[in-house]
């Protein structure tokens, strides 16, 4: 049982990836291959088995709620691909005039 083209396109949409026709076909093929392989775990009986989230879990770790030094605004923004002053700049989200225009 594979993964359909529609399903593959839906997964790409969820993953925020845009794939062209050739990439979509390849993704559908790869995903089907991998899904066919991982389906083998379906045969295992796991009734009453608790899931493992962390293998060597440390119990809840708490600390006093105190303010500690952290990154300055400038450091935090230093890697932004596009910014305006103290803000990250992105294409306008609302209809109408942008700030610059």
């Amino acid at each position: 049982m594979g993964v359909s083209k529609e399903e593959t396109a839906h997964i790409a949409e969820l993953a925020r990836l845009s794939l062209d026709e050739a990439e979509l076909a390849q993704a559908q093929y790869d995903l089907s291959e991998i899904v066919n392989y991982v389906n083998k775990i379906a045969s295992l009986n796991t009734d009453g088995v608790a899931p493992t989230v962390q293998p060597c879990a440390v119990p809840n770790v708490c600390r006093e709620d105190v303010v500690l030094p952290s990154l300055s605004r400038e450091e935090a923004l230093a890697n932004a691909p596009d910014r305006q002053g103290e803000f990250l700049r992105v294409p306008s989200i609302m209809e109408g005039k942008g700030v610059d225009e």
Partner: protein
Amino acid sequence: MKLCDMTIHELAELLEAGEVSSKEITESVFERIDGVEESVGAYVTVLSDEALEQADAADERIAHARKCGDFSGISPLTGIPLALKDNICTKGIRTTCSSRMLEDFVPPYDATVVERLQGLGAVIVGKTNMDEFAMGSSTENSAFHITRNPWDLQRVPGGSSGGSAAAVAAGEAIGALGTDTGGSVRQPASFCGLVGMKPTHGRVSRYGVVAFSSSLDQVGPIAKDVRDCAIMLAAISGRDTRDASCSPEPVPDYSSSLKANIEGLTVGVPAEFRHSGLDSGIKELVDGAARMLEEAGARVVEVSLPHSEHAIAAYYLVSSAEASSNLARIDGIRYGYRAVDASDVQELIRRSRSEAFGPEVKRRIMLGTHALSSKHYEEYYLKAQKVRTLIIGDMNEAFKKCDCMICPTSPTVAFKVGEKPNDPVAVYLMDIYTTIVNLTGVPAVSVPCGALDGMPVGAQLIGRAFDEGTLLKIAHSLEKACAISDRRAPIAAMDGRRGK
């Protein structure tokens, strides 16, 4: 032998005795880089100026200690040139994960492991090449260039920490850190004739290490021998308040645990790992390693991991699901690559991700998104987490009968560049012996146990959670028994003959 071909503990002795300076060691490493890096391609970024400054600082520190007659502030890593995999954040130095996505990313902070190494006075030589976002087992998935195996330049160094392993094997660093999510430290160590360890999940802080799969990832040392591995492990282990999953378990003196003999310890051989698909040459070498441990005083027994045949499926579901979630934060807005001329924010995010992630990263994001989607969550992700519990149960049962287990690290020696199978499932199956360790969280170390057709073969020793001490003791015993005298890869030996 040149300084760059020596081990950390040998150099530490020379440094303390004042017979050599960190500057000389560091220069020897850079001379080797000048000689071989063009053929090997171990690094993404080489930090010559910074490294020489750090070497001078280390030399001053050692000179000061000598003047005061107090070496308590000196570690075996003081003045030792080390390399870091390029998914470990270094303040002010770009950290790319070998991805176009982070090609220009300059972290504003250091990972905890980097702080610890620098606090001890280690010298950082550079940032090493890897499979993009640590997804792969050959370093061919790097967006920048491939890395070649110093034992045979026609072959891959393994991956995803292939740059770290190649750097150490070629003498382009004395030791290195890698990260291991499904074998990414142990398999390249095995392919390059080195010792590589994945510590217990929670032994080493993951703060500042670009997350692939948070419940599986762990930073680990790649070293020329077991003693060096113990030195590096001790340096990076221990509680970190910035990583809540990092354990408060005390860190023992791993180097002193190497002294004891292994009499009375029991080594288990997992029956399921002796299957027919394994290369007969590798099987013989690992069987031989088990016999050597027996001769050294250990008892060897057969153990069983009945659910291990499901490990790879569970691993690819868990790791891909967590990867798709971890990489969702990369959107082209706050840092990383941004597509030009996008008309709206959704298009900006989609196009930035599609243009800058490589094919394997996209494949894993797709699988992970599928496994986490509401329709398939129970069938895949939750199911895989339950299978994980069953495999942990197997492991606990096995450790009632033995103190460590032995099996191959990889079912093959290093393969030729470009000869990785096209079928993703065939590639994933090569992780058969390593993924089970990450799923169960326990520590494991790959130790060289011989060679096939001139290529190194590693035996993997798997230990109990937080019992790296016993594991290193057994690894040390195996290393002595195998008595591999010249560990230098041919490219290092060639450079030595040229008398450069």
